[in-house]
């Protein structure tokens, strides 16, 4: 170890010990919690995979039947999904299963939330890097266009920009609310 690294180690250790003597963890957590509740920024625990535009989705707790079940083809976000639901494959409606990678290239549509009646922008990302999950196969086509509109077609495998082209399952991530203005 070089003298420079020893110096940095000593400095960090001293600073950490002094902070530990002056402050309590409980005090720190209290202040941190207050700051976060007061904040308007989306922090944790928000699933983020493709970009930073993702914001918390609407509440599904009050939805009736399969419209509120992420493992169902009838789940409201799945109005244009074609593939195996990641919620049935070790992931969730917005997170890939462990060991797979979310494709940054995706196709995007809208689905109406049956609770608030708003149209939400949904990104259908494939999770790539393992063979087909083969559970909860769904084919819904709201807003889908024929294959010659490739960017709006969900028959394609969307594993572009990922290490592997093998598709495992698909997620339906809420990006925002579509408005007319």
């Amino acid at each position, binding site marked *: 170890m070089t003298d420079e690294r020893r110096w940095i180690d000593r400095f960090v250790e001293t600073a950490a010990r002094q902070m530990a003597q002056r402050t309590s963890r409980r005090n720190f957590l209290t202040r941190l919690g207050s700051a976060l509740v007061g904040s308007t920024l989306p922090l944790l625990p928000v699933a983020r995979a493709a970009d*930073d*535009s993702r*914001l*918390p989705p609407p509440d599904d707790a009050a939805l009736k039947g399969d419209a509120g079940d992420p493992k169902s083809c009838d789940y409201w976000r799945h109005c244009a999904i074609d593939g195996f639901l990641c919620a049935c494959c070790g992931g969730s409606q917005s997170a890939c299963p462990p060991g797979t990678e979310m494709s940054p290239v995706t196709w995007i549509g809208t689905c109406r939330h049956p609770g608030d009646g708003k149209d939400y922008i949904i990104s259908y990302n494939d999770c790539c890097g393992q063979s087909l999950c083969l559970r909860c196969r769904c084919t819904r086509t709201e807003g889908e266009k024929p294959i010659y509109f490739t960017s709006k077609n969900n028959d394609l495998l969307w594993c572009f920009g990922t290490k592997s082209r093998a598709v495992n399952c698909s997620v339906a991530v809420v990006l925002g609310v579509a408005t007319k*203005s």
Partner: protein
Amino acid sequence: MRGAAVVLLAAAAASVAAADVGGPALDYALNCQGCHRADGAGTPGSVPALAGSVGKFLRVPGGREYLIRVPGVAQAPLDDAATAAVLNWILARFGNDDLPADFSPYTPAEIGRLRRDPLTDVERVRRDLLDAIARSK
């Protein structure tokens, strides 16, 4: 205490509503963003970046026309007015630093004229334009 902090964190996240998106921003989200991504970064090897790139095409001959004649724009399922609006939105958002001083926004009539003449060899035209952009520096 730790559990309380987690609850506070979850409450902070849940209190934020999903953002409203409309107009050309919505058209970008639904027709362009899936490939070019929300930040215009594209995906190297698959999809060209818009950010830091798209505005430079307007500085070389043929570049203004190219941005409309590329398949994604010429064949977009948007009418001429909406296409002009989303192109101008893209240029303002991802190319503002690169626009020439005499830039004028696209008009619906210009979109309608150019999209009827789509490119048949996109890669070659793009390569030539990128060479021209590099030479113009």
